[in-house]
Protein backbone atom coordinates (compact mmCIF):
# COMPACT_ATOMS: atom_id res chain seq x y z
CA UNK A 1 0.00 0.00 0.00
CA UNK A 2 2.90 2.37 0.74
CA UNK A 3 4.05 1.94 -2.81
CA UNK A 4 0.64 3.02 -4.11
CA UNK A 5 0.10 5.83 -1.59
CA UNK A 6 3.65 7.30 -1.68
CA UNK A 7 2.97 9.65 1.26
CA UNK A 8 0.05 11.22 -0.57
CA UNK A 9 1.93 11.67 -3.87
CA UNK A 10 0.79 8.36 -5.35
CA UNK A 11 -2.21 9.87 -7.13
CA UNK A 12 0.08 12.32 -8.98
CA UNK A 13 2.81 9.82 -9.79
CA UNK A 14 0.61 6.92 -10.91
CA UNK A 15 -1.74 9.12 -12.91
CA UNK A 16 1.19 10.52 -14.90
CA UNK A 17 2.64 7.08 -15.56
CA UNK A 18 -0.84 5.93 -16.72
CA UNK A 19 -1.33 8.96 -18.98
CA UNK A 20 2.23 8.61 -20.27
CA UNK A 21 1.71 4.95 -21.07
CA UNK A 22 -1.53 5.68 -22.96
CA UNK A 23 -0.06 8.59 -24.96
CA UNK A 24 3.14 6.71 -25.86
CA UNK A 25 1.08 3.65 -26.84
CA UNK A 26 -1.06 5.87 -29.09
CA UNK A 27 2.04 7.44 -30.63
CA UNK A 28 3.60 4.03 -31.19
CA UNK A 29 0.47 2.38 -32.62
CA UNK A 30 -0.72 5.10 -35.01
CA UNK A 31 2.06 4.67 -37.65
CA UNK A 32 1.30 0.93 -37.90
CA UNK A 33 -2.44 1.57 -38.38
CA UNK A 34 -1.59 4.23 -40.98
CA UNK A 35 0.75 1.83 -42.79
CA UNK A 36 -1.84 -0.96 -42.72
CA UNK A 37 -4.47 1.39 -44.20
CA UNK A 38 -2.09 2.51 -46.96
CA UNK A 39 -1.07 -1.05 -47.80
CA UNK A 40 -4.73 -2.04 -48.11
CA UNK A 41 -5.28 0.97 -50.38
CA UNK A 42 -2.29 0.02 -52.57
CA UNK A 43 -3.57 -3.56 -52.85
CA UNK A 44 -7.04 -2.31 -53.86
CA UNK A 45 -5.48 -0.01 -56.48
CA UNK A 46 -3.54 -2.96 -57.82
CA UNK A 47 -6.72 -5.06 -58.19
CA UNK A 48 -8.83 -2.35 -59.83
CA UNK A 49 -8.40 -2.09 -63.61
Amino acid at each position, binding site marked *: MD*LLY*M*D*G*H*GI*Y*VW*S*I*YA*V*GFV*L*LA*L*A*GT*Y*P*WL*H*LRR*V*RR*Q*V*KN*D*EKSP
Partner: protein
Amino acid sequence: MNILTATFHRLTSPEFFYSKTRVWVFCLYFLGIAGLLTGSIWGLFFVPPEKFQGDSFRIMFIHVPVAHLAQMIYMGIAVAGAIYLIWRIKMADIFMAAAAPVGCIMTALALISGIVWGMPTWGTGWVWDARTTSVLVLFFLFFGLIALRQAIGRRERAAFAVSVLAIIGAINIPIIKYSVEWFATLHQPASITLTEQSAIAPVFLIPLLTNIASMYVFAAGVVLASMRAHVLERHAQTSWAQDTVGGEEP
Protein backbone atom coordinates in the same frame (compact mmCIF):
# COMPACT_ATOMS: atom_id res chain seq x y z
CA MET B 1 32.10 9.44 -52.29
CA ASN B 2 32.40 7.57 -49.02
CA ILE B 3 29.96 4.93 -47.83
CA LEU B 4 28.11 7.27 -45.43
CA THR B 5 27.39 9.83 -48.13
CA ALA B 6 26.35 7.07 -50.51
CA THR B 7 23.94 5.60 -47.93
CA PHE B 8 22.50 9.06 -47.21
CA HIS B 9 21.89 9.66 -50.91
CA ARG B 10 20.27 6.25 -51.30
CA LEU B 11 17.99 6.86 -48.28
CA THR B 12 16.47 9.83 -50.11
CA SER B 13 15.16 7.30 -52.65
CA PRO B 14 11.62 6.32 -51.47
CA GLU B 15 11.93 2.73 -52.69
CA PHE B 16 15.27 2.15 -50.97
CA PHE B 17 14.06 3.88 -47.80
CA TYR B 18 10.86 1.85 -47.58
CA SER B 19 12.53 -1.50 -48.16
CA LYS B 20 15.57 -1.00 -45.92
CA THR B 21 14.12 0.70 -42.84
CA ARG B 22 11.68 -2.03 -41.77
CA VAL B 23 14.29 -3.83 -39.65
CA TRP B 24 15.48 -0.52 -38.13
CA VAL B 25 11.93 0.26 -37.01
CA PHE B 26 11.57 -3.07 -35.20
CA CYS B 27 14.99 -2.68 -33.51
CA LEU B 28 14.27 0.92 -32.41
CA TYR B 29 10.83 -0.01 -31.03
CA PHE B 30 12.25 -2.98 -29.13
CA LEU B 31 15.22 -1.07 -27.66
CA GLY B 32 13.12 2.00 -26.85
CA ILE B 33 10.33 0.09 -25.08
CA ALA B 34 12.80 -2.15 -23.19
CA GLY B 35 14.81 0.91 -22.08
CA LEU B 36 11.70 2.85 -21.02
CA LEU B 37 10.42 -0.09 -18.99
CA THR B 38 13.83 -0.50 -17.34
CA GLY B 39 14.23 3.20 -16.52
CA SER B 40 10.64 3.60 -15.30
CA ILE B 41 10.63 0.48 -13.10
CA TRP B 42 14.03 1.54 -11.73
CA GLY B 43 12.76 5.06 -11.02
CA LEU B 44 9.48 3.91 -9.48
CA PHE B 45 10.62 1.01 -7.32
CA PHE B 46 14.37 1.16 -6.71
CA VAL B 47 15.17 4.85 -6.19
CA PRO B 48 14.69 6.42 -2.72
CA PRO B 49 12.35 9.42 -2.26
CA GLU B 50 13.98 12.79 -2.89
CA LYS B 51 14.76 14.85 0.24
CA PHE B 52 12.56 17.89 -0.54
CA GLN B 53 10.05 16.70 -3.15
CA GLY B 54 9.36 13.27 -1.66
CA ASP B 55 7.92 10.75 -4.09
CA SER B 56 6.48 13.32 -6.52
CA PHE B 57 9.95 13.73 -8.07
CA ARG B 58 9.39 10.31 -9.75
CA ILE B 59 7.30 12.23 -12.31
CA MET B 60 10.64 13.64 -13.54
CA PHE B 61 11.50 10.26 -15.09
CA ILE B 62 8.69 10.98 -17.58
CA HIS B 63 8.68 14.79 -17.64
CA VAL B 64 12.36 15.48 -18.38
CA PRO B 65 12.73 12.99 -21.28
CA VAL B 66 9.56 14.12 -23.10
CA ALA B 67 10.26 17.84 -22.54
CA HIS B 68 13.80 17.48 -23.89
CA LEU B 69 12.70 15.32 -26.80
CA ALA B 70 9.88 17.69 -27.82
CA GLN B 71 12.39 20.53 -28.29
CA MET B 72 14.80 18.32 -30.25
CA ILE B 73 11.98 17.12 -32.52
CA TYR B 74 11.05 20.73 -33.23
CA MET B 75 14.67 21.57 -34.07
CA GLY B 76 14.76 18.54 -36.37
CA ILE B 77 11.60 19.74 -38.13
CA ALA B 78 13.04 23.24 -38.53
CA VAL B 79 16.26 21.82 -40.06
CA ALA B 80 14.17 19.59 -42.36
CA GLY B 81 12.15 22.68 -43.32
CA ALA B 82 15.34 24.50 -44.30
CA ILE B 83 16.54 21.46 -46.28
CA TYR B 84 13.21 21.31 -48.10
CA LEU B 85 13.26 25.02 -48.95
CA ILE B 86 16.86 24.91 -50.22
CA TRP B 87 17.09 21.54 -52.00
CA ARG B 88 13.40 20.52 -52.35
CA ILE B 89 14.20 17.05 -50.97
CA LYS B 90 10.83 15.30 -50.56
CA MET B 91 12.07 13.08 -47.73
CA ALA B 92 12.57 16.25 -45.66
CA ASP B 93 8.88 17.03 -46.12
CA ILE B 94 7.96 13.46 -45.22
CA PHE B 95 10.08 13.77 -42.06
CA MET B 96 8.21 16.95 -41.11
CA ALA B 97 4.84 15.25 -41.67
CA ALA B 98 5.86 12.21 -39.59
CA ALA B 99 7.60 14.04 -36.74
CA ALA B 100 5.05 16.80 -36.01
CA PRO B 101 2.38 14.53 -34.39
CA VAL B 102 5.09 12.81 -32.29
CA GLY B 103 6.38 16.19 -31.13
CA CYS B 104 2.82 17.32 -30.36
CA ILE B 105 2.21 14.26 -28.16
CA MET B 106 5.58 14.68 -26.38
CA THR B 107 4.85 18.35 -25.68
CA ALA B 108 1.35 17.52 -24.41
CA LEU B 109 2.84 14.92 -22.06
CA ALA B 110 5.51 17.39 -20.90
CA LEU B 111 2.81 19.96 -20.11
CA ILE B 112 0.49 17.48 -18.36
CA SER B 113 3.30 15.95 -16.29
CA GLY B 114 4.59 19.44 -15.40
CA ILE B 115 1.13 20.52 -14.26
CA VAL B 116 0.63 17.40 -12.14
CA TRP B 117 4.15 17.67 -10.65
CA GLY B 118 3.51 21.35 -9.84
CA MET B 119 0.39 20.60 -7.79
CA PRO B 120 2.16 19.02 -4.77
CA THR B 121 5.52 20.79 -5.33
CA TRP B 122 4.64 24.40 -6.20
CA GLY B 123 1.15 24.33 -4.72
CA THR B 124 -0.29 25.18 -8.15
CA GLY B 125 -0.60 23.32 -11.43
CA TRP B 126 -0.03 26.29 -13.72
CA VAL B 127 1.67 29.67 -13.64
CA TRP B 128 2.02 31.97 -16.63
CA ASP B 129 5.79 32.21 -16.32
CA ALA B 130 8.30 32.20 -19.18
CA ARG B 131 9.12 28.47 -19.20
CA THR B 132 5.58 27.09 -18.99
CA THR B 133 4.22 29.65 -21.46
CA SER B 134 6.98 29.05 -24.02
CA VAL B 135 6.36 25.28 -23.83
CA LEU B 136 2.64 25.93 -24.35
CA VAL B 137 3.63 27.98 -27.44
CA LEU B 138 5.68 24.96 -28.61
CA PHE B 139 2.54 22.79 -28.32
CA PHE B 140 0.57 25.28 -30.43
CA LEU B 141 3.42 25.38 -32.98
CA PHE B 142 3.31 21.59 -33.38
CA PHE B 143 -0.48 21.77 -33.62
CA GLY B 144 -0.12 24.55 -36.19
CA LEU B 145 2.28 22.48 -38.31
CA ILE B 146 -0.23 19.61 -38.40
CA ALA B 147 -3.25 21.85 -39.04
CA LEU B 148 -1.50 23.85 -41.76
CA ARG B 149 -0.60 20.68 -43.66
CA GLN B 150 -4.18 19.45 -43.41
CA ALA B 151 -5.62 22.80 -44.48
CA ILE B 152 -3.64 23.20 -47.71
CA GLY B 153 -4.68 20.87 -50.49
CA ARG B 154 -1.64 20.95 -52.77
CA ARG B 155 1.24 18.95 -51.30
CA GLU B 156 4.05 21.27 -52.52
CA ARG B 157 2.31 24.38 -51.18
CA ALA B 158 1.64 22.66 -47.86
CA ALA B 159 5.28 21.59 -47.60
CA PHE B 160 6.44 25.15 -48.36
CA ALA B 161 4.08 26.70 -45.77
CA VAL B 162 4.98 24.12 -43.10
CA SER B 163 8.71 24.67 -43.73
CA VAL B 164 8.37 28.44 -43.34
CA LEU B 165 6.32 28.07 -40.13
CA ALA B 166 8.81 25.53 -38.74
CA ILE B 167 11.76 27.85 -39.35
CA ILE B 168 10.03 30.92 -37.91
CA GLY B 169 8.85 28.91 -34.88
CA ALA B 170 12.40 27.74 -34.13
CA ILE B 171 12.95 31.10 -32.40
CA ASN B 172 10.90 29.62 -29.55
CA ILE B 173 13.50 26.91 -28.77
CA PRO B 174 16.23 29.20 -27.34
CA ILE B 175 13.45 31.07 -25.52
CA ILE B 176 12.40 27.80 -23.83
CA LYS B 177 16.00 26.89 -23.01
CA TYR B 178 17.08 30.25 -21.59
CA SER B 179 13.70 31.28 -20.10
CA VAL B 180 14.82 30.11 -16.66
CA GLU B 181 17.92 32.36 -16.87
CA TRP B 182 16.45 35.42 -18.61
CA PHE B 183 13.28 35.69 -16.53
CA ALA B 184 12.24 35.16 -12.91
CA THR B 185 10.38 31.85 -13.06
CA LEU B 186 9.16 29.18 -10.68
CA HIS B 187 10.82 26.56 -12.87
CA GLN B 188 14.28 25.54 -11.70
CA PRO B 189 17.34 25.95 -13.99
CA ALA B 190 18.72 22.98 -15.93
CA SER B 191 20.07 20.26 -13.63
CA ILE B 192 21.90 18.35 -16.38
CA THR B 193 24.32 20.21 -18.65
CA LEU B 194 27.08 19.07 -20.97
CA THR B 195 29.60 21.59 -19.64
CA GLU B 196 29.17 21.26 -15.88
CA GLN B 197 28.82 18.45 -13.39
CA SER B 198 25.21 17.35 -12.93
CA ALA B 199 23.33 18.76 -9.92
CA ILE B 200 21.51 15.42 -9.60
CA ALA B 201 22.91 12.56 -7.50
CA PRO B 202 23.90 9.45 -9.53
CA VAL B 203 21.19 7.38 -7.84
CA PHE B 204 18.58 9.57 -9.61
CA LEU B 205 20.66 10.46 -12.65
CA ILE B 206 21.26 6.97 -14.04
CA PRO B 207 17.57 5.93 -14.40
CA LEU B 208 16.80 9.44 -15.69
CA LEU B 209 19.48 9.19 -18.39
CA THR B 210 18.22 5.68 -19.23
CA ASN B 211 14.74 7.07 -19.84
CA ILE B 212 16.03 10.07 -21.81
CA ALA B 213 18.08 7.84 -24.15
CA SER B 214 15.24 5.29 -24.47
CA MET B 215 12.66 7.98 -25.22
CA TYR B 216 14.89 9.22 -28.08
CA VAL B 217 15.25 5.69 -29.45
CA PHE B 218 11.51 4.99 -29.19
CA ALA B 219 10.61 8.31 -30.85
CA ALA B 220 13.10 7.59 -33.66
CA GLY B 221 11.32 4.27 -34.25
CA VAL B 222 7.88 5.95 -34.27
CA VAL B 223 8.99 8.69 -36.67
CA LEU B 224 10.67 6.15 -38.96
CA ALA B 225 7.56 3.92 -38.95
CA SER B 226 5.39 6.93 -39.75
CA MET B 227 7.77 8.00 -42.54
CA ARG B 228 7.43 4.54 -44.12
CA ALA B 229 3.64 4.94 -44.15
CA HIS B 230 3.89 8.42 -45.69
CA VAL B 231 6.39 7.21 -48.32
CA LEU B 232 4.10 4.38 -49.37
CA GLU B 233 1.04 6.65 -49.39
CA ARG B 234 2.73 9.19 -51.68
CA HIS B 235 3.97 6.50 -54.07
CA ALA B 236 0.87 4.29 -53.99
CA GLN B 237 0.46 4.48 -57.78
CA THR B 238 4.04 3.49 -58.61
CA SER B 239 5.00 0.03 -59.75
CA TRP B 240 7.59 -0.44 -56.97
CA ALA B 241 4.95 0.27 -54.29
CA GLN B 242 2.51 -2.23 -55.81
CA ASP B 243 5.24 -4.84 -56.29
CA THR B 244 6.53 -4.32 -52.73
CA VAL B 245 3.10 -4.48 -51.06
CA GLY B 246 2.07 -7.43 -53.25
CA GLY B 247 5.15 -9.35 -52.12
CA GLU B 248 4.83 -8.48 -48.40
CA GLU B 249 3.34 -10.73 -45.77
CA PRO B 250 -0.27 -9.77 -44.89
